[in-house]
């Protein structure tokens, strides 16, 4: 911890959207009035019990919350150290944590009278979740997806189309998630009068990092209560993977002021942090400004953004939510990175010990859990957010393992 440890880690951001020196509203003037308007509407929604009641109702009956808290007995035995518990957000409707945020944002869109929804997606999980809520609320939906990712994630592209969304392949730049986000912002600027942009992670201009975190905090709020009810205590270590960082913040945020609970965020090290083929913005990047916020970015010495690489399309974003940048600087959360190969090991380990096929994103976290659990004692508890299921990734994994399907 630094000397300037705040009294609470749960009061960020400030009223201008800053997490320490990070976050903020770095957008073109055309968008400023919009995001100020969004913030006003969000504050009104927060103060409206009917809004929270509708959100809770949909999470319970449509998404299937609360998600279970599960003691992974055989994995724990195999690792021979700390007890490993999972928050099972892969059991949500649509198979990942992304839906929590999409429910919240589409209720905001509805409240604001917007009639058209846009979103960006990398792996396709956020695109599927957005297409899902748009179908549920009968709103037209355009999903921007990097052309590279359209090729890598064809099952999710098909899902989005089944759900009625228009999927627009983005060919500009490197044709991945960051380019899809650029295209989403361009659409939004040109269609401000009727369009709501559902951003998929806890990044972008204020108030997005805050509102996404708050919608995702249902994960940690449930897990904290479930853990207390089941074990009578809090976990020793929380672990979650990080692309933009929304599932990790969702788990971590409700525990931030529990000083005995340590936290570990796991970035994607791709082919290794010593080269430039990774997606570890915090461990391998430096602060800068992109997509509306100041945060750690993968960039060259001239400030040009470099392409992230990860086996997982959901992690290869060259930035990170600004709250993580702040949590790193304050020392409250520890960050590490796991390579493609190690993530594959984590993937296989969970399949065989627990009968759960995880997404490649949390497979990174599983590897980190395996490493840490071995160094801890059997009366200690690790809680990991199992934020997505692996159905979408089996083709990628088969290819890596040299299996023809």
């Amino acid at each position, binding site marked *: 911890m630094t000397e300037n440890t705040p009294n609470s880690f749960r009061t960020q951001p400030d009223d*201008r959207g800053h997490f320490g020196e990070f976050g*903020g*509203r*770095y*957008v*073109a*003037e*055309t*968008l*400023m*009035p*919009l995001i100020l308007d969004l913030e006003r509407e969000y504050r009104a929604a927060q103060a409206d019990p009917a809004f929270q009641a509708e959100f809770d109702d949909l999470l319970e009956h449509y998404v299937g919350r609360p998600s279970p808290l599960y003691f992974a007995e055989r994995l724990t035995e195999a690792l021979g150290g700390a007890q490993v518990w999972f928050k099972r957000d892969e059991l949500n409707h649509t198979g990942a944590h992304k839906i929590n945020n999409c429910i919240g944002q589409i209720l905001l869109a509805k409240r604001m009278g917007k009639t058209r929804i846009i979103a960006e997606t990398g792996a396709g999980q956020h695109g599927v979740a957005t297409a899902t809520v748009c179908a549920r609320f009968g709103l037209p939906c355009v999903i921007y997806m990097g052309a590279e990712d359209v090729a890598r994630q064809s099952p999710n592209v098909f899902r989005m189309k089944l759900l009625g969304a228009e999927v627009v392949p983005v060919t*500009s*730049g490197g044709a991945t998630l*960051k*380019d899809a986000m*650029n295209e989403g*912002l*361009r659409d939004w*600027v*040109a269609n*401000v009068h009727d369009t709501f942009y559902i951003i998929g992670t806890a990044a972008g201009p204020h108030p997005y990092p805050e509102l996404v975190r708050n919608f995702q905090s249902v994960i940690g709020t449930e897990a904290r209560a479930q853990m207390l009810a089941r074990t009578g205590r809090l976990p020793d270590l929380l672990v979650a993977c990080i692309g933009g960082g929304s599932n990790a913040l969702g788990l971590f945020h409700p525990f931030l002021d529990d000083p005995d609970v340590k936290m570990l965020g796991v970035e994607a090290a791709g082919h290794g942090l010593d080269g430039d083929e990774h997606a570890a913005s915090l461990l391998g990047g430096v602060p*800068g*400004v*992109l*997509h*509306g916020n100041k945060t750690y*970015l993968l*960039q060259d*010495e*001239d*400030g*040009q*953004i470099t392409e992230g690489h990860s086996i997982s399309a959901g992690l290869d974003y060259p930035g990170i939510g600004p709250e993580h940048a702040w949590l790193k600087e304050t020392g409250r959360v520890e960050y590490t990175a796991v390579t493609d190969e190690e993530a594959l090991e984590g993937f296989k380990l969970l399949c065989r010990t627990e009968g759960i096929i995880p997404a490649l994103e949390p497979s990174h976290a599983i590897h980190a859990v395996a490493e840490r659990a071995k160094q801890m004692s059997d009366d200690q508890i690790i809680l990991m957010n199992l934020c997505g299921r692996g159905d979408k990734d089996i083709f990628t994994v088969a290819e890596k393992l040299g299996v023809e399907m």
Partner: protein
Amino acid sequence: MNRLQAAFSKPHPAFVAFATAGDGDTAANLDALVAGGADVIELGMPFTDPMADGPAIQSANLRSLGKGTTTADVLQMATDFRKRHPETPLVLMGYANPMIRRGAEWFALAASNADVDGVICVDIPPEEDGELGPALREKGIAPIRLATPTTDAARLPAVIEGSEGFLYYVSVAGITGKQQAAIDSIEANVSRIKQSTDLPVAVGFGVRTPEQAAEIAKVADGVVVGSAFVDLVGEFGDAAPAKLQALTSAMTSAMRAARS
């Protein structure tokens, strides 16, 4: 009177011409724009993620970066331009990250050493302008802000506060190089803005033809053209300068005729 003030004090409305640094033969392109009658040069600093730009300028950015253009190269182009054109103001336009990568003060000093007259940073609104704007002003460089159709009366004073040189009115809520706004809407907005500031107001986004430039020249202090030039560089490459000069001449002639 500094170069920007002089450019906006001429008997005709100022023609502000944009080129992306490092796209084609930049020195020849800029010379052609000046020869055609451009009053202000806007030199675009290439960026990997130009969120506010349409396909034309996106492609120009990628062409430039693909050739390996660095920040040092862009500053050198500005320095060289100043030697050739001591009187024509040059404004750097770009995105925050390349400008603040080595610190706002570093950038302001480097721009000052290149004798740059102004800087337009697309994605630093007044709310986040605690470092770059002050650093530029400290070096005598005008921080030029953008006002848009969505900039309402409540926000306009914040946009104007700290702006220098001229105010860039973005005529459409959208990205560069796409549709143009109706002249009625431009006239109403420019007149609204001019009630709040003595700064000259230049209008841009979507201006592609001499006819459009002439229409706007009737109601604004300046006209900004970018994508139409960038398209010519994309199409004609090293042969672009003659085309750029011809289009600039056609636009400036039409603008002067419209005002006379």
